[in-house]
């Protein structure tokens, strides 16, 4: 069994593809550096990330794939699911080997799986656009905490940057301990040294802006009044707005 070890970065993965083609051997398994190797390891190869090599694979793929499919690869990578790197590897290999585009061949198990996983990721990104709730802090920064299933923050930042261009905001991923801060000009990645106190996703009342509490109450009042009692359908509500988001939703507190 041939195993490739790489540094678990996207660049590393693309380098692995370059190396596989130049060695003319393809790995049965992709592992991160330091992972426990499988029992019947016959050969191993250490991939060293290389900007030039990964760049060449990237250019080749961009030439061969449509923009939509390139986006799909990004989504797959951001899913951070176990085995998604091997799926990516197989998908890219099939793309390179095939004389015609494989993008629409959904009878192929890998193409279908890649498509479905990418769709899940983009769905999660859409969920975040729906359910991010900002709270205005005393220093006029709008703060929101999230904990998405997949690492989708990079996918949604542009949306918020365009939409809330005239207010400072922070969106912070509590699961992955990083976030983005927008300061009216640029949007930068940031980490908090200690985010324990934010675990509930709510700002402390002392940190809130003066009128924040009032608008939260107004929104809650509005939300309650919108229900039509004769049509209550809690299952449908949960289907559209899964319970895992409720802890961050102002109206559900």
């Amino acid at each position, binding site marked *: 069994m041939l195993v490739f070890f790489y540094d678990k970065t996207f660049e590393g993965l693309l380098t692995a593809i370059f190396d596989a083609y130049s060695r003319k051997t393809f790995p049965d398994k992709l592992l991160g550096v330091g992972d426990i190797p499988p029992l019947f390891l016959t050969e191993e190869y250490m991939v060293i990330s290389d900007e030039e090599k990964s760049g060449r694979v990237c250019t080749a793929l961009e030439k061969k794939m449509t923009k939509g499919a390139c986006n799909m690869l990004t989504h797959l990578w951001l899913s951070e699911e176990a085995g998604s790197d091997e799926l990516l590897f197989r998908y890219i290999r099939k793309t390179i080997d095939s004389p015609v585009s494989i993008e629409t061949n959904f*009878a192929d198990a890998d193409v279908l799986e890649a498509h479905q996983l990418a769709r899940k990721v983009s769905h999660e990104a859409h969920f975040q656009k*729906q359910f991010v709730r*900002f709270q*205005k802090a005393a220093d006029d920064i709008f703060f929101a905490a999230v904990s998405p299933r997949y690492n989708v923050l990079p996918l949604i930042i542009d949306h918020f940057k365009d939409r*809330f*261009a*005239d207010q400072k905001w922070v969106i912070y991923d509590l699961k992955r301990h990083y976030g983005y801060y927008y300061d009216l000009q640029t949007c930068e990645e940031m980490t908090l040294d200690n985010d324990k106190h934010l675990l509930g996703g709510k700002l402390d009342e002392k940190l809130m802006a003066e009128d924040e509490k009032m608008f939260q109450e107004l929104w809650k009042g*509005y939300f309650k009044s919108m229900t039509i009692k004769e049509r*209550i359908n809690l299952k449908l509500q949960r289907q559209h707005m899964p319970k895992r988001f409720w802890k961050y939703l102002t*109206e559900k507190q």
Partner: protein
Amino acid sequence: MNDNVLQKLKTLAKSAKYDVSCSSSGTVRQNSAGGLGNTVGGMGICHSFSEDGRCIALLKIMLTNYCIYDCAYCINRRTNDIRRATFTVDELVELTIEFYRRNYIEGLFLSSGIIHSPDYTMERMVRVVKQLREVHRFNGYIHMKSIPGASRELIDEAGLYADRMSVNLEIPTEANLKLLAPEKDHRSVYKPMKYIQQGVLQNIEDRKKFRKAPRFVPAGQSTQMIVGATDERDKDILRVSSILYQQTQMRRVYYSGYIPVNSYDKRLPTLKQAPLVRENRLYQADWLMRFYQYRADEIVDDSYPDLDLEIDPKLSWALRHPETFPVDINKADYAMILRVPGIGVKSAQFIVMSRRHGRLNASHLKKIGIVMKKAQCFITCNELPTFTVQEATPEYVRKVLTEPKKKADGGQLSIIFPD
């Protein structure tokens, strides 16, 4: 902003909630420099869902719930003894902006009861959206109700600020509208509809000449009909919507299952429960017209005037036309594949794309996401012929598909221990 506003907000939200439309789709607009908000197009963004499972995308609110009319189906009729309130323009604008900044909403859905006259009301509504767009440079979504009977100038002005406008038809036939709302007629509804449509068409022409010409109601118009308050059959309702889709380029027709809000009124039927299943079937039929290339008279006609509540309209059509099946998945054209029960628009596109790479069989179809329980009786694929609707007869297929689901107990014997 104080308790008074909270009270008003609750009152006016309760009055506005029976309006069905809440979509935020149809326009793509990027933020302008120094402005607030954008619209995303596509399927829009729903920000929350109330306990009845309906989405809350827009701040759906009335400017006032005072009304000079006395329509039997409406909660805000003047003879109803309910709490009344009116927002000032500033209050409503501030609420919209602050809710938007917190990502609670996608924009504003502004409606109003009619005070003094249609024009007086419409003018006040226009003032709200004008202030939002011009003073606060708000680029979010705005859906505005056009008041029946409002003048053309006001609608033309409103159209420059709103993304979508709507006039509610409410009752599909004129006779029944006269019965329930003697002060209204269809003319006053169709007139503003026509103004909006002409404005949109004119705008398309203008934008061909001047690329920067301001857009007029870019997301088009929608309307709504109440289902179950009067004695219209489904065929009447669907005929009206099909005409609206074709002749007025309506983007959406909404169906609102009648909820007995004024049960004391003897002109209205007494219902135990809102006709939710019928409403759902009407939406399914509506989808068939908009995305599946069905004509209204294929879904319901004189010999089949009402939709089947037990099975969906697409399956119902298939069972009435067994002669068109089975469909060969590997050969049939897209329009025919779209007509197979259990195959949706996405799946049909997947099939058409994938079969260029090789023949498809049943296991592929299942993985792609087709509901094989329904579809298997209506298709043949790259396998031996199966038991299709031709052999099984439509009656049998219907029986199998409408059987209540058996509980999966896994064949486990239950042992009852004596006390």
